[in-house]
C-alpha cells in the first residue's frame, strides 16, 4: 500500500483539514493501521464520528470512499457481485441478428454450439458483472478507502465471509477466475457494539474505541463545523450537552446531535441559552419522551437548590 501519511502528526493535521478533529489516540492508531496494513475496527456509541472518520481519511488521502452498509441478511450477492441477468437478456435480444449471422453458417447443431461457446465470454465478462462495494474496492484502479459500516448488524455468517476477503483481498468468480486487488484498500470497520464480534475478526484488526468527546474536544468540533454560532453560546451549548450525557438518559445525545442542535440555534438566531430556547430546541438532542421529561425536570427547571442540593451538585459537571 502506498503511504498515505508519513507521521502521526500529518495524520492529525490532514484530518483536521477535512474538518475532523482527531485526538492523539485516533491519529496514532490510524497511522499504525496504515503502516501495518491492517483493517481498523472502530467501536463506540452511536454518533461519535466513526463513519465520519473513514470519510475524513478518504478525503485526506484523496482516495475514493467505498461504503458497504451492513444489515441483517446482507449476503455475498449484495456485498460482492452479482451477474446482471436482465442486461444479459437484453443484449441477447438486441444482438439476435448478429447471433443468427454467426450461428447461421453452422452446418450442424454441434458446430453451432461450439461457435456459441466461443462467444460465451462476451456474456460473462466484467461488462455484465454488477459490482458491489467489496468487488469495487478490490478492482479499483486507484487505491481506495473501504468503509464497512455497522458490521455488528450483519450476520455472523457474513462476518466469516468478510474475513476471507479481508485477509488476502482476492475473490474468485467462477466464470472469470480469481480477481486480485490491484491496490490493497485501507479498510475501516465500524461497530456499535450491539453484538459481540467474532474473535477471529477482532484478531485481524486494530482496535480503536471512540468514546464521547471531552468538553474541549466537543467545543472544538462545534466551532469547526458550525462557525456561525457565537463562541459564548457554543460554550454554553456544549456544557449543557455534556451535562445531559452525565445524567442517566435512555439515549445520550451524540456529537452529530450536538451539531444539529448548534445549527438549530444558529437558524433560530438564538442569543442566549435561556429557558425558552432550551425548551423549544431540546427535542433536537433528546429523542425519547422519557428523556425529554427528565431533562425538563432536572436541567431546565431544576428544583430549588435548598431543597435538593445533592441533585444539583450531580449535574454541575463534577
Amino acid at each position, binding site marked *: 500500500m502506498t503511504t498515505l501519511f508519513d507521521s*502521526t502528526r500529518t495524520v492529525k493535521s490532514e484530518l483536521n483539514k477535512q474538518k475532523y478533529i482527531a485526538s*492523539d*489516540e485516533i491519529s*496514532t*492508531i490510524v497511522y*499504525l*493501521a496504515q*503502516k*501495518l496494513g*491492517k483493517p481498523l*475496527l472502530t*467501536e463506540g456509541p452511536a454518533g461519535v464520528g466513526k463513519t465520519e472518520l473513514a470519510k475524513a481519511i478518504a478525503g485526506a488521502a484523496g482516495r475514493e470512499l467505498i461504503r458497504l452498509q451492513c444489515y441483517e441478511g446482507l449476503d455475498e450477492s449484495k456485498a460482492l457481485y452479482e451477474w446482471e*441477468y*436482465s442486461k444479459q*437478456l437484453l443484449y441477447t435480444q438486441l444482438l439476435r441478428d448478429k447471433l443468427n449471422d454467426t450461428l447461421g453458417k453452422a452446418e450442424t447443431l454441434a458446430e453451432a454450439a461450439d461457435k456459441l461457446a466461443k462467444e460465451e465470454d462476451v456474456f460473462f465478462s466484467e461488462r455484465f458483472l454488477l459490482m458491489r462495494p467489496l468487488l469495487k474496492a478490490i478492482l479499483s484502479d486507484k487505491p481506495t478507502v473501504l468503509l464497512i459500516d455497522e458490521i455488528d448488524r450483519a*450476520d*455472523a*455468517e457474513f462476518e466469516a465471509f468478510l474475513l476471507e476477503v479481508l485477509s488476502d483481498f482476492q475473490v474468485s468468480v467462477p466464470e472469470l477466475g480469481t480477481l486480485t486487488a490491484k491496490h490493497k484498500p485501507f479498510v475501516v470497520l465500524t461497530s456499535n*457494539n450491539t*453484538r*459481540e464480534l*467474532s*474473535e477471529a475478526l*477482532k*484478531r485481524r*484488526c*486494530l*482496535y*480503536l*474505541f471512540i468514546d464521547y468527546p471531552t468538553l474541549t474536544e466537543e467545543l472544538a468540533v462545534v466551532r469547526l463545523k458550525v462557525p456561525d454560532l457565537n463562541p459564548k453560546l457554543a460554550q454554553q451549548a456544549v456544557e449543557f450537552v455534556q451535562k445531559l450525557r452525565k445524567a442517566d438518559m435512555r439515549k445520550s445525545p451524540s456529537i452529530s446531535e450536538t451539531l444539529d442542535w448548534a445549527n438549530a440555534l444558529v437558524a433560530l438566531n438564538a442569543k442566549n441559552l435561556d429557558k425558552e430556547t432550551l425548551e423549544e430546541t431540546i427535542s433536537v438532542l433528546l429523542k425519547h419522551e422519557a428523556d425529554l421529561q427528565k431533562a425538563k425536570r432536572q436541567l431546565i427547571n431544576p428544583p430549588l437548590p435548598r431543597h435538593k442540593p445533592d441533585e444539583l451538585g450531580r449535574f454541575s459537571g463534577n
Partner: protein
Amino acid sequence: MESRILQLIAALRASGVRVSLAESAEAFSAVDLMGIQDREQFRLSLRATLIKDVKDLPVFDKLFPLFFGAGQPPPMMGGNPMDDMTPEEAQMLTEALRQFTESLRQRMQRLMNGEQLSREELEALGQMVGLNQVDDLRYQNWMAQRMMRALAFPEVREALKELMEQLRQMGMSRDRIEQMREMIQQNMDGMREQIERFAGERIAENLSDKPRGESMDNLLNRPFHALSEEEKKILQREVKRLAAMLRTRIALRQKHAKSGQLDPKATIRANLKYHGVPMEIRHKDRVRKPKIVVICDISTSMRFCSELMLSFLFALQGQVRKTHAFAFIDHLEYISEDFNGSNADEAIASVLWRMPSGHYNTDLGWSLQNFQDGYMDTLNGGTTLIIVGDGRNNYYDPRLDIFSAMTRRAARTIWLNPEPPHLWHGDSDMSKYAPLCTNVLKVSNLRELAEAVDTLMAG
C-alpha cells in the same frame, strides 16, 4: 523491553483478557514501527493491537503503568531542610532529636534527608509483608499500607509532630518550622508513592508469572462446587462468550437448512429479474426455536448451577421463542418477570435475594403441586421442559403423578442433574423421576452445561 512486553501480555492473560499469539506478534511489529521514545504512542500501539474489547480496556490501563512506569520520573522528594539551616538551628534540631530512640531517630533523619528507598530495602519490605504471594491487583493498596507500617510510618509521623512542637518551644522561627514540615510531608508522600508503585509492579509481575494452568479449560471442567468466588466471576464472563458461540452456531444451523417448505411468494419475488423463470428457489424459514419452561432448584446445593443455567438461558434469549422460568426451594415462584430488564445478572441477584435458602427445606413435590395449580397451561406440544436440580427431596412426597402429567403435556423433558447416577440414593428421588424424562444429562461443570444447551437447541 521485549521481556517486559511479554510480561505485560502474560499479566493481561492472567487477568482474563484473551490475547492470541498473532496479536502479541502484532504488538511487537507495532512497537517496532512506532518506537518507544514517545511513551503515549508506545502505549497506544500496544493497546490497539492487544485489546479488542471495551471491557478489557480498564484492565490494560491499570496494568500498563505498572510495567512501564507511571510516565513521570521517580517520585519527587522535597529536599533536605537542613541544607540551608543556620548553625544554631542545626544545633537545635540535633538537640531535639536526642530524646527519641535510636531507630526512630534514624528513620526521621532519613525522611528529612529526602533519600529514596533503595531497591534492596523495598525488596526486604516486600518480603516482610509477603508481597511475593500476592497476585491480585486489588491488594495493591493494602500491601502498600502494610509495607509502610513495617517502616513504622505512623510512629514516625507522630514523632515528627512531637519534634516540631519541641523545636517551636526551643524558639525556632515559625516559618522555618513550616518549611520543614512541608518538605518532610513531600518526602513522605514521595516515599509512599514509591512504595505503592513498587507493590503494584511486584503484584503485576507475580500476575504474569502465575502458571497458565489455571486457564479457562481447567475452569470449564472444574465442578461447580469447587469454584472460588473469583473463578465464578471469570466463569460468568465465559458463560456469555459460550452463549455467543452457541448462538452463532445455532444461527448457522437455521440458515443452512436449505430445504423444506417452498415459499411461493418469496420465490416469485426473487425471480422477477429472470422473467419469472424460477432460477432461485426460496424456502420458508424453518423455525426451530424451542419454547422453554425451566424449573430451577435454587437451594444452596444447586444455587450456582442454577445461576449459570439461568444466565445461559437469558443470554440465548434470541434463539428461544418463549421462556417461562420458575424457581423453587420449598415452593415454586414464577421468575420470568424479573428477567424482563436487560441485565440478567441483576435479575438473578434479585431472585436469589427474594428467595433465600434455608436448611434442608427443598420440597420438589410441593413445588410441582404449585406448578400444577397455577401454570400447567404453559406446557404444550411445542414446549421443552427443563428441570435443573439434584432431585433431593428431603423424603417428601415426590408427586410422580404430577410430574408424569407434565412430561406427557410437554414435547420433551430434560433433566439437568449435577450428580451422576451412582449418587442417586439417600433422599434423592432421581431414580424415580429419571424414567419419565426424555433425557437426563449430568451437568456438573460449565462444559457439560454448554453441551447440554447445545443438544437442547439441536433437538
